[in-house]
C-alpha cells in the first residue's frame, strides 16, 4: 500500500490537468485544489521515504524489462518535497496573478502538466521514461513561457523549445547506446552491470551533454535568460526554480549512481570548470542587467554553476562521511536555490505589476510602498548570496571545506568571487528599492578619494577575514583551523 503512493504525485496533477482542460470555467478552482492534493501527496511520499527508506513499484504488475517502474530514494524525495512546496506557492500566487484573466485558463492545464512531468522525472526508475518525462517537461515549459503571447516571449520560447528538443534527442541517443550494451533501461539494474567501455563512456558524454543543455550549464545557457525573463511571474518562478533542477537532478543521478564506476577526475573537472564559468559569467551579467527579472534569470545561470562545482569534489572524495556531507550540501544548495529563486521571481512579479515595469534603476521607493515584497527580495537575495543562516551558506561552507580537503583550492577563488558578485547584484536592487529618488548612475564620483577608502574597506573584509592566517604566524601562534 505504501508503495502505491508513488503514483499519486504523478497521477494527481495529470488528472487535474485533464479536468482543467475539460472544464475551463472552473480551471482556477480545480488548479488550486489539485495543487494542494499534489503537494500533500509529494510531502506524504517524502515522509514515507524518511520513515521507511527507499520505495519502488512496477506499475500494472508487468515485470521489469517491460513494465514501467517508479522509485524514490532520499535524493528524489528531497527534490519532490521542494517541487511540492514551491509548486503549491506558485499555484496560490497564480490564483491572484491571473484572476479575471483569460490567460489563466491556459495557465492551469499547462502548469499541472509541467508539475506532472517534473514529479515524473524525480520518480522515474528507467532511462526511457525519464526521456518521455523530460520531453513532456520541455514541451509544457515552452508553452507556458510563451503564455503572454508577446513577440519576445514567443521567440525566446521557440528557441527554448528547439534547444530542449536538441538536448533530449542527444540524451536519447545516449540511452540507445546504453541499451545496446546492456539490454536494459532500469537504473537499478544498470548501475550493477555498468563496466568501463568506450560505448558506455560515449553514452555518458551524450547524455550529460544533452542534459547540460537543458540545465543551462555555461556556455549552453544562452537560451535561458530571455525565456525566463519574458514569461509571466509564476511561470518564471517555475522555470527557474524547478525545471532546470530536473535536468540537474538527472545529471547528478547519472554521475553518482548509474555511472559511478566510469566517471573520472578529468571529466568531473570539466563539469566543475563549466560551473565556474557559469558562476562568474552569470553573476557578472546579473550585475549588469537592467531589469529585475533578467537579473534573476542570470542569477539562475550562476547558481546552476555552483551545483556543478560539486562534481569534481564528489569525484575526488572517497566514500565516507565527508563525501556524504558534500552530497547533502549539493542537494541542499539545489533545494535552497529552488525556494529562493521562486520567491525572488514571485516578488519581482509583484513589483512589476505594481510599478508597471521592472527596471532596476527606477525602483525607487519600492521599499516604502511594498515593504513585504522588498523584504522577500532581500531574504531570497541573502540566500542567493549565501549569507548565514540560509541553506546555501551551509552548502557553500561544506563546499569550500571539501575544496580545501581535496586540495582543489582554485574553486575557492571562484566561490569567493561569485559570492561577492551576488552580493553586489542583490544590494544593487535593494539600494534602489530603499531610495526615494532615482540614485546616481555613477559608482565612483571622486576616484582619488574614494578608491583608497574602498580598498581599505575591502581589505578589512576580504584580506583580513579570508586570509587571517599570516597574523597568527606573525605572532608565533599555530595556524587557525578552518
Amino acid at each position: 500500500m505504501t508503495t502505491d503512493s508513488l503514483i499519486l504525485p504523478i497521477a494527481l496533477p495529470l488528472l487535474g490537468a485533464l479536468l482543467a482542460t475539460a472544464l475551463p470555467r472552473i480551471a482556477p478552482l480545480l488548479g488550486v485544489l489539485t495543487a494542494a492534493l499534489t503537494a500533500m501527496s509529494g510531502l506524504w511520499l517524502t515522509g514515507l521515504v524518511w520513515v521507511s527508506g527507499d520505495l519502488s513499484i512496477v506499475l500494472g504488475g508487468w515485470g521489469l524489462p517491460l513494465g514501467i517502474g517508479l522509485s524514490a530514494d532520499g535524493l528524489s524525495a528531497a527534490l519532490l518535497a521542494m517541487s511540492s512546496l514551491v509548486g503549491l506557492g506558485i499555484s496560490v500566487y497564480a490564483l491572484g496573478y491571473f484572476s479575471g484573466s483569460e490567460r489563466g485558463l491556459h495557465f492551469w492545464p499547462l502548469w499541472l502538466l509541467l508539475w506532472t512531468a517534473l514529479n515524473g522525472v524525480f520518480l522515474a526508475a528507467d532511462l526511457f521514461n525519464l526521456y518521455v518525462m523530460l520531453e513532456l517537461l520541455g514541451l509544457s515549459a515552452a508553452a507556458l513561457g510563451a503564455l503572454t503571447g508577446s513577440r519576445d516571449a514567443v521567440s525566446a520560447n521557440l528557441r527554448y523549445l528547439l534547444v530542449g528538443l536538441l538536448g533530449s534527442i542527444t540524451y536519447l541517443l545516449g540511452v540507445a547506446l546504453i541499451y545496446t550494451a546492456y539490454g536494459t533501461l532500469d537504473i537499478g539494474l544498470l548501475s550493477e552491470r555498468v563496466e568501463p567501455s568506450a560505448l558506455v563512456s560515449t553514452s555518458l558524454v551524450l547524455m550529460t551533454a544533452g542534459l547540460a543543455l537543458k540545465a543551462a550549464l555555461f556556455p549552453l545557457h544562452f537560451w535561458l535568460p530571455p525565456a525566463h525573463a519574458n514569461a509571466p511571474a509564476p511561470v518564471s518562478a517555475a522555470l527557474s526554480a524547478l525545471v532546470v533542477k530536473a535536468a540537474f537532478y538527472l545529471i547528478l543521478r547519472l554521475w553518482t549512481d548509474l555511472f559511478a564506476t566510469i566517471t573520472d577526475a578529468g571529466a568531473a573537472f570539466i563539469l566543475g570548470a563549466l560551473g565556474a564559468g557559469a558562476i562568474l559569467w552569470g553573476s557578472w551579467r546579473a550585475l549588469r542587467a537592467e531589469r529585475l527579472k533578467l537579473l534573476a534569470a542570470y542569477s539562475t545561470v550562476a547558481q546552476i554553476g555552483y551545483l556543478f562545482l560539486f562534481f569534481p569534489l564528489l569525484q575526488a572524495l572517497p566514500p565516507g562521511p565527508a563525501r556524504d556531507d558534500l552530497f547533502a550540501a549539493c542537494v541542499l544548495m539545489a533545494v535552497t536555490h529552488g525556494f529562493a529563486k521562486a520567491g525572488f521571481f514571485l516578488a519581482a512579479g509583484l513589483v512589476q505589476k505594481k510599478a508597471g515595469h521592472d527596471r532596476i534603476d527606477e525602483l525607487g521607493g519600492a521599499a516604502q510602498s511594498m515593504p513585504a515584497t522588498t523584504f522577500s527580495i532581500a531574504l531570497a537575495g541573502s540566500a542567493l548570496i549565501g549569507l548565514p543562516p540560509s541553506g546555501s551558506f551551509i552548502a557553500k561552507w561544506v563546499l569550500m571545506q571539501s575544496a580545501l580537503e581535496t586540495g582543489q583550492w582554485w574553486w575557492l577563488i571562484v566561490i569567493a568571487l561569485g559570492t561577492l558578485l551576488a552580493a553586489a547584484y542583490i544590494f544593487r536592487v535593494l539600494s534602489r528599492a530603499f531610495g526615494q529618488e532615482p540614485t546616481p548612475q555613477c559608482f565612483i564620483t571622486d576616484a582619488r578619494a574614494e578608491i583608497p577608502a574602498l580598498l581599505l574597506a575591502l581589505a578589512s573584509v576580504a584580506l583580513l577575514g579570508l586570509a587571517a592566517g599570516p597574523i597568527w604566524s606573525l605572532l608565533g601562534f599555530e595556524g587557525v583551523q578552518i
Partner: protein
Amino acid sequence: MIAQFLYGGAGILLFALGLWSLLVHAPLLRKLIALNIMGAGVFHVFIAIAHRGDALPPDPVPHALVLTGIVVAVSATALALALNSRLEQGENEPEPASSPSPGPRIHMQPALSTEPSSKGATHP
C-alpha cells in the same frame, strides 16, 4: 550482422547531419526538419539494436521506444510550428494585441528584449 552495422551507422550519420544542419541554418523550418532527421537517426539506431540474429525474433522493447519517440517528435514539431505561426501573425499586425497580465502594460526596454529575430529565425 553487416546489415545491422550499416543500419546503425546510417542512424549515427543521420544524427550528425541533422545536428550540423540544425546549428548552421537559421530558418525555423530547416531547424525543425533537422531535428526530425536527428530523431530519425536515433530511431534507426534503436531499430538496428533490436536485431538479435536471424534465429531469434527482434527485441520488442526498442520498437516500443521508437513508437513513443515518434509520438513525442510529432507533438514537439506541432508545438514549434504553432509558436512560429504565432510569431508570423504578430508580424502582420502592427502591435501584438496582448498584455502580459491584467495589470498595467509592461514596456520592455529594447536593449534588453531578445535580439530582433527575423522571420521565425532562432539562433542557438
